[in-house]
């Protein structure tokens, strides 16, 4: 029994890597994840990752922000301490638009960003779970869970055929832990 936990195919070209994904999938080898130094369009479709719903989050947070500040201003200027400014109406909606707009944007931006951090488990101090240190530099890495998968040699050959510059058999899942 080999001690290999993960097999990594390292590519130096995104097109070769896409080719590698196709080859693996044609041979029914499940892909654990793919790590790239830049966003590569089309991988998410191949790996079956659904569209992000962060837009809905942004919209809801925006609505919340707008409602909160509008209600606050209404309470301050109309209910709690109405000021007589030349007899003009206290409920001066046009004047409420700028703060309402600003907080709509503020809540949408922050709400969405924090939802993004929460959903992708990003936070300051989180131990980076890196499988190969060059994946943030110049290598496009396909990671395959070695357990229960077809002979490792076959996977290695498939990746090499697709143009992988290097294939690693890692005994540890993450190299970034000290």
């Amino acid at each position, binding site marked *: 029994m080999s001690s290999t936990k993960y097999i990594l195919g390292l590519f130096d070209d995104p097109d070769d890597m896409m080719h590698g994904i196709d080859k693996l999938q044609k041979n029914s080898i499940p892909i654990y994840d793919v790590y790239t130094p830049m966003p590569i369009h089309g991988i998410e479709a191949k790996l079956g990752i659904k569209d992000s719903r962060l837009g809905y989050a942004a919209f809801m947070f925006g609505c919340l922000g707008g409602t909160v500040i509008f209600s606050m201003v209404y309470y301050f200027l109309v209910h709690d301490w109405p000021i007589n400014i030349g007899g003009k109406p206290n409920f001066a909606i046009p004047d409420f638009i*700028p703060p309402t707009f600003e907080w709509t944007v503020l809540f949408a931006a922050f709400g969405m960003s924090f939802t993004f951090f929460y959903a992708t488990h990003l936070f300051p101090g989180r131990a980076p779970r890196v499988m190969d240190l060059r994946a943030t530099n110049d290598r496009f890495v396909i990671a395959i869970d070695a357990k229960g998968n077809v002979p490792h040699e076959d996977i290695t050959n498939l990746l090499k055929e697709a143009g992988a510059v290097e294939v690693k058999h890692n005994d540890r899942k993450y190299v970034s832990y000290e």
Partner: protein
Amino acid sequence: MASHNESIIREPLVTGKDITYAKVTEDVLSPVENKPNKAWWIGFTVASLGACLWVFAVSYTFWYGIGSWGLNKTVGWAWDITGFVWWVGIGHAGTLISAVLLLFRQKWRNSINRSAEAMTIFAVICAATYVVSHMGRPWMALYTLPLPNQYGSLWVNFNSPLIWDVFAISTYFSVSLVFWYIGLLPDIATIRDRASGLRRRIYSICSFGWTGSVKTWQRFETVSLILAGVATPLVLSVHTIVSMDFATSLEPGWHTTIFPPYFVAGAIFSGFAMVQTLLLVTRKVLGLENYITMFHIESMNKIILVTGSVVGVAYLTEFFIAYYSGGEYEQYTFLNRFIGPYWWAGCMMYGCNILMTQLMWFKRIRTSIPISWALSIVVNIGMWFERFVIIVTSLHRDFIPSSWAMFYPTWVDVSVFIGSIGLFFTLFLLFLRVLPSIAMAEVKLLLKSSSEQAKKKLIDEGHLDKSQVEYYKESLINYDSVKISDYEKV
């Protein structure tokens, strides 16, 4: 991906031979991973001396009060608000580059957005310090927020543009910061994975554990796009509201409906000038000529020309409306800009912003680096004088001649202003040392399609229209980072 090639008539966004993904990382990170060079130290020394001056002048203001400035009963706003509006305006270019150009899918933004956004943040910091120091008693800043208090509670007045401004500037600053930082995450992760020891630990904390997996990238792009979508109206609203600080008053010269669009155009104008000032030096000192190319410089000059002309039209409209309104106070204010005691400020404003910018119509000027740099400084100066003219020249002679007065800055006024420039450059130079000044991940996206080497390969393959190739080669002549002799035999 590379299933289709970019048209050859588009100029390359990354020049140089043998630019690989690793080379991009090396080039961009070299100032971060190595000891700074002499130019950096000289710049940093000068800038931090300026920042010290700022600390001293602002402390002096807080100790002795606003009376240490040259303000008087008639001219109650002068260098402070001039500086504030100047810095806020400068900040606008960063958001414009990162948000508006992203929405328009302008790929040339990729190599300049990072430093432009950093510039935005530092400029807004400078602007915010002006507002707080103008309070004289900085702890009073708390009362601009709608917090419950022992006076009733007496709330802030949401009918006032000054309160809108508090909301606009604080929202703008924090949203810009989030936008900038999320964009930085992948690049901080790159530094982390190349570093060791303490550096690695620090960058590890800052990287939030970024790995570059498919799902994070996909979410990252969604977040960037939506942030760009909300930041675009935000940036327009911010300077609109800044202009309303003036436009909602009854002061001749301020009380005009043209102010919001006029201020927004002016802000973009001055902001791009500042980006140009910074990047032309940065690319030279840090050796980034391959990433910030002549195409970027010329594109920015074109934006400066367009927005400068918009500002020019706004100036003419102001004059016409002053004449057409028949209001004698309004008419006098505009005449006073040329025949009053501050005529020289008016000349600086109109000369620098309109006349000098029109030189940009000539391609030779747009593509000359020294002239572009000089003109960007001229625009920075002109835009400072614009705010000075609007504020001081309008205030010093308004309705009642008996209260007319002159404004003379004291050394504290001058020091706060020069100091704020020092503060800005200190922050910017520190940024260049610790964070990548170019968004590496985004530039890597351009390599396969928009780089000079990719286009050269296409030409070498020889299936392209001859006239288009000629056109392309001609466009490369102005590039200082391209050896045109490489193309002679092609």
